């Protein structure tokens, strides 16, 4: 067993949307501006393109070119994690190799889409993706998005045995039982193993031992997200409660609206990145109005940056 110690600590990870033009092309000028916004507003790391970035709506070739474009524009200012989730194991492994060649610092992948595979299939899928690269590999646990397919602590024990570059879990299960079992085991088997919260509900994971955060809401409220992250990193967990409750309110308002809601909220913050690609549909006028009213009622939002 090699004593792989990941030198890479993702910390607070922003997950930018992908801006589209009216004719559904990628707006590269706006993407540059968006990347600069995230770098200037608290990101330790960028993860591209996550589900918030509509990864599944980008054809393979476009996804590769977008990653290359972003890494070139970031130009070493911050590490870039590449999202390589796919249904087919071979396709995902090829995306992973491309990401390493393009200069990504690490990769992250979910369980396979659609198949709702049993544990043994999930293990082989992840093992093949991880083995395709030498950079750190994080798996993404999102049972609600993946029809119940889970990453388990048992699966992680096996991945640690198989992959010297298996570096951690990004958790969107929000499940205390899983997180505690994982963090009891994995860091002992692999020093430096990391738990990252997959959403801005960080206080409980931070108590359990999480070291990082994937934050799509940083597009709306980067100051609030940074404050939550810093308090949790410093283990000021009681002090973090109020900030956590405010962000939980923002998340509860936006979550049912998906990427369309996230983009509508960005427009309300004067950072228009267009509408999502089909099959997602934009919010209608009434839903937009309701969202703006909800955002107005959140007391901390006036302190957040408007525009770029």
């Amino acid at each position, binding site marked *: 067993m090699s004593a792989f110690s990941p030198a890479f600590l993702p910390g607070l990870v922003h997950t930018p949307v992908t801006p589209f033009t009216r004719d559904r092309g990628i707006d590269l000028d706006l993407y540059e501006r968006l990347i600069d916004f995230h770098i200037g507003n608290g990101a330790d790391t960028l993860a591209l393109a996550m589900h918030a970035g509509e990864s599944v709506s980008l054809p393979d070739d476009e996804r590769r070119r977008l990653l290359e474009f972003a890494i070139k524009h970031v130009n070493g200012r911050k590490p870039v994690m590449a999202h390589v989730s796919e249904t087919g194991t071979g396709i995902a492994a090829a995306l992973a190799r491309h990401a390493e060649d393009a200069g990504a610092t690490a990769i992250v992948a979910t369980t396979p889409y659609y198949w709702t595979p049993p544990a043994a299939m999930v293990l082989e899928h992840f093992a093949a993706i991880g083995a395709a690269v030498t950079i750190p590999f994080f798996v993404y646990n999102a049972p609600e998005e993946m029809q119940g397919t889970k990453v388990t602590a048992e699966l992680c024990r096996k991945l640690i045995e198989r992959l010297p570059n298996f570096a951690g879990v990004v958790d969107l299960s*929000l*499940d*205390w*039982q899983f*997180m*505690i*079992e994982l*963090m*009891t085991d994995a860091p002992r088997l692999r020093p430096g193993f990391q738990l990252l919260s997959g*959403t801005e*509900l960080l*206080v*409980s*994971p931070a*108590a*359990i*031992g999480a070291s990082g955060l994937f934050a799509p809401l940083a597009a709306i409220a980067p100051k609030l997200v940074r404050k939550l992250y810093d308090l949790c990193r410093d*283990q000021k*967990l*009681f002090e*973090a*409660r109020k900030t*956590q*409750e405010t962000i*939980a*309110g923002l*998340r*509860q308002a936006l979550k049912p609206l998906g990427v369309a809601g996230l983009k509508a909220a960005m427009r309300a913050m004067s950072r228009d990145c267009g509408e999502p690609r089909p099959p997602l549909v934009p919010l209608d006028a009434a839903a937009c109005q309701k969202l703006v009213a909800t955002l107005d009622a959140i007391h901390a939002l006036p302190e957040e940056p408007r525009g770029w």
Partner: protein
Amino acid sequence: MPSKFRGVMQSPVTPLKDDFSLDLPTFEKLLDFHVRTGATAISWPHHKSESLNLTIAERKRFAEAAVRVVNGRIPVTIHVSALAVEDTMALARHAQEIGADGILAITPYFWTPSLEAIEAYFMRLCRSIALPVLSYNSPSYLAGVEITGELMARLIERLPNFVGVKEASFNSEKFLEISRAALAMRDDFAMLTGVEYLLPSVPLGGVGSYSAAGSICPNLCAQLFDACTAGDWPRARELQAKVSWLWLLFRDQYPSSLKGGMVMMGRPVGPTRAPLPTATRERQAYIESELARLGILDTEPHGW
């Protein structure tokens, strides 16, 4: 004034004789054991106490015993959840008559009731008695049926005796949805969790938990609560890891495995009623080896 329902509260298992009938003398010893070893309240009969395998008459009989034996040393709440809502209503009235300090009630079983039906249920239950009522949210065991933050707020607004919740989703989002709605309205609303999941809940405003392993390791439970309320997170992580491992051990065939473990701690409480199995000797030996590995046999009380 902070809620009197706080800390690690113990819900005793139900001791049975070899013929599966209730074993009152052992129940009395067990209640005393929990009071002496630091329980902050007694609550009976939880699912762990095989509540749904007991007749309503049996539940009333042991509820009376619990109130009598504890005798005001710590609060006693009665878990009134039953398959038939009419039984729940009767158990709640009975709890009040025998002098219990409160009741605990889960969302109704089996029917996957709508939010409106859950609301009507708690309105009726709370208005039928003067005792404090703790609600019980357990979506993963009840096909997703749960109390939302909005419903919690409506109930708190209208019911002065609706004083807390056992939030047993073990999920950051669900706990926060309820805690931020409830605590904004009443800062002494008791946010409680199940199975000693204190480390993730106390920093969010949690004030305590019920307990799976308290009949095995009461010292560990008390130490975990103290470390969490003191904000000693490194120590709390270490203790939570140990307690959570015990939960994984006992969750399999709960509470049969727990009763098996109690044999190894010198506190035998008899078999488990069907359809639950009774822990075999092999299972008991495995549990004992795990308790030894975790240092429980050396650090926790043996015998009564």
